[in-house]
């Protein structure tokens, strides 16, 4: 699977997650304050340029990892989703 094919799969996943939160918000309007900003960021992230940059950053970091053997971890909340 090429990078472009991968990004083409991620775009509907990001938009679908935003749509899913929209449907949750419709059922529970009291959640709108919490969900609206997250929905906006999800829709903004569903952009081929942003995803391409993330892939590029990831590949560069993996190359560095292979060269140095040094882990460089971060705590990222989406990893526990």
């Amino acid at each position, binding site marked *: 699977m090429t990078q472009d094919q991968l990004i083409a799969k991620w775009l509907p996943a990001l938009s*679908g997650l935003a749509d899913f939160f929209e449907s949750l918000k419709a059922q529970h309007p009291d959640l709108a304050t919490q969900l609206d900003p997250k929905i906006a960021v999800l829709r903004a992230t569903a952009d081929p340029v942003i995803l391409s940059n993330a892939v590029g950053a990831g590949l560069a*970091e993996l190359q560095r990892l292979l060269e140095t053997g040094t882990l460089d971890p971060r705590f990222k909340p989406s*990893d526990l989703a």
Partner: protein
Amino acid sequence: MQGFVVKLLIALALLASYAVAPDDCDGASVWDAVSLGVGGGGVWVGEGGVPGFRDAEAVARGAASITPHVSLVAGASYGVDRSYVRGSGGFRLTATDVNNPDFGIGVGVSRHWTSEDGSGMDEAAAEAAIGWKPLPGRSFLLTGLAAYGIDTGRQLFSVAVIFPLKKASGGAQ
């Protein structure tokens, strides 16, 4: 499925080899890179149209953040009403600020499996995930996941409240 497990084990073995590499004395250990969490939530499954609520779940999640943007992730969920077990394992790329411990969006690919047809998927899936800490001073996270089956197009959505048992401790926090 066996091939995937073998690849995952090889990846973990490579990670372990980095931890004992002689030139790794200034880097983080594998344990520093690990995040673990447990919690509860719900899952919705569908094939086209609006996905239907399937079950409430008890969940356990783990991740190894090997670089700022790249993580290996895995999770298992138990259906409280239907008594199924489903799980997944794969990689994830962070598309937002990797130094923000309170909010993140990631995309990736995972191999999913389930003990009950209809309560998940048994194939590789493209994923988008979101996690955020809604209340400062409280450690729990709210998470959401969308997974789209690469072969069948089946859709899976899950939301959960996760209590981190351990956070990755490298890099800027």
